[in-house]
C-alpha cells in the first residue's frame, strides 16, 4: 500500500518542502564541483532531473525504476530489467545490495552475500557481508526462538487475569476514590 500526502494550504513565509531543499542543495553542490574537486564524477554525472520545483511523482517513478532513454513513463515491473550502463534508473536498495555483493565477489571475497532480505521475511536492514554471517556473529538462518513462542503462550492467560484483577481492584476501591 502506498500513502500519499496532499497539500492543504500554501506554506507561510519562505517555508519550502524538503523535496525542494534536497533538490536545491544538490544543485548548489554541483555548482561547487563544476570547478573540480576530489572525485567529482558522482556529483556532476548524477541522474538528477526533477524539474525546478520537484514533484514527488517524478521521484516515486524513479524509486520504482525506469528506462532513462525513454523517459519516466517507461516504468519497470522487474529488477531483472535493470542494467548498469546508465540507461536505467532505480532507487531500489535490494538490487543495489546485490550489485555491491557481485563486486565484492569479483574482488575475491567468494563468501560475500546479501543478508537481511529473505531472512525472517526481511529484517528492515540490508547487509552486504564480505564473509559468511557466522564470522560476524550473525546466525546463518535466523529464526524466532521457540522459547519466545512458549513463554508468550504461557503468559497469555496470566495477562488476561492481571487485566481483570486490575479492573476488580479499581471497582472494589470505587468508594474510596469517590470520597476523594
Amino acid at each position, binding site marked *: 500500500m502506498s500513502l500519499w500526502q496532499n497539500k492543504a494550504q500554501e506554506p507561510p513565509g519562505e517555508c519550502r518542502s524538503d523535496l525542494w531543499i534536497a533538490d536545491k542543495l544538490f544543485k548548489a553542490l554541483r555548482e561547487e564541483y563544476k570547478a573540480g574537486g576530489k572525485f567529482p564524477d558522482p556529483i556532476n554525472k*548524477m541522474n538528477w532531473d526533477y524539474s525546478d520545483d520537484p514533484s514527488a511523482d517524478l521521484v516515486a517513478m524513479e524509486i520504482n525504476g525506469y528506462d532513462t532513454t525513454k523517459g519516466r513513463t517507461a516504468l519497470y515491473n522487474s529488477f531483472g530489467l535493470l542494467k548498469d550502463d546508465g540507461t536505467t534508473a532505480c532507487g531500489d536498495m535490494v538490487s543495489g545490495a546485490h550489485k555491491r555483493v557481485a563486486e565484492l565477489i569479483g574482488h575475491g571475497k567468494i563468501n560475500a552475500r546479501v543478508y537481511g532480505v529473505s531472512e525472517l521475511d526481511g529484517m528492515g536492514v540490508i547487509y552486504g557481508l564480505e564473509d559468511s554471517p557466522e564470522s560476524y556473529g550473525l546466525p546463518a538462518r535466523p529464526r524466532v526462538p521457540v522459547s519466545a513462542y512458549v513463554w508468550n503462550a504461557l503468559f497469555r492467560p496470566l495477562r488476561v487475569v492481571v487485566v481483570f484483577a486490575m479492573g476488580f481492584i479499581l471497582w472494589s476501591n470505587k468508594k474510596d476514590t469517590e470520597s476523594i
Partner: protein
Amino acid sequence: MPQQAEAAENVRVQYAKEVSTICTFCGVGCGIICHVQNGVVTNTEGDPDNPINEGALCSKGSSHYNISYVYDTKGKPVPNPNRLTKPLYRAPGSNKWEEKDWGWMLSEIAKRIKKTRDATFVATSGGVTVNRTPGISWLGSAFCTNEENYLFQKLARSIGIIDLDHCARL
C-alpha cells in the same frame, strides 16, 4: 417579551473543502482530513476512510492543527508564532540566530560540504576502491516522505557519506 431562541451556530467545517493527508509524527501513517476554506486550514481530524487509523488519532496527531494555528485568549485561531518562516543561521561560536535567504544558505552549506569532503575523502582502503567521506554524517527525518528521504539519501550517497541514518530508526 418572550426571549428569542438563539440561532444555532454554524459548524466550522460546513463550507470547507476536504484534503486528505498523512500524519508525519511517527511511522504508523494515520490518515488525516484537513478542512480548507479560502486556502486556509480551519480544522483537522482523523480520516475514517483510512484503513490504518479508521478515524482515530493519538494526542499528537489530533493536535496537528496547532502546527499552523494556535488559539488566542479569546479562542480565535491565529498563526502559530513558534513556526519558523525564514531560514535561520547561527555562526560558529555565536549565540544569535540571523535571518538569511535561501540562496546564501544553500550555497554556504554546499561550500562547507565541499571543504570537508575534499579534506577527508578516502579513495582506496586496503587496495579496494571505497570512495567514501568519513568526515560528514547525515541524518534523515521522520517528518519527510519516502520521496524526500530518498532524495536526501541519494544526495548523501553521491558525495560518499557512509554514516547515513534516520532519527526514527529504533
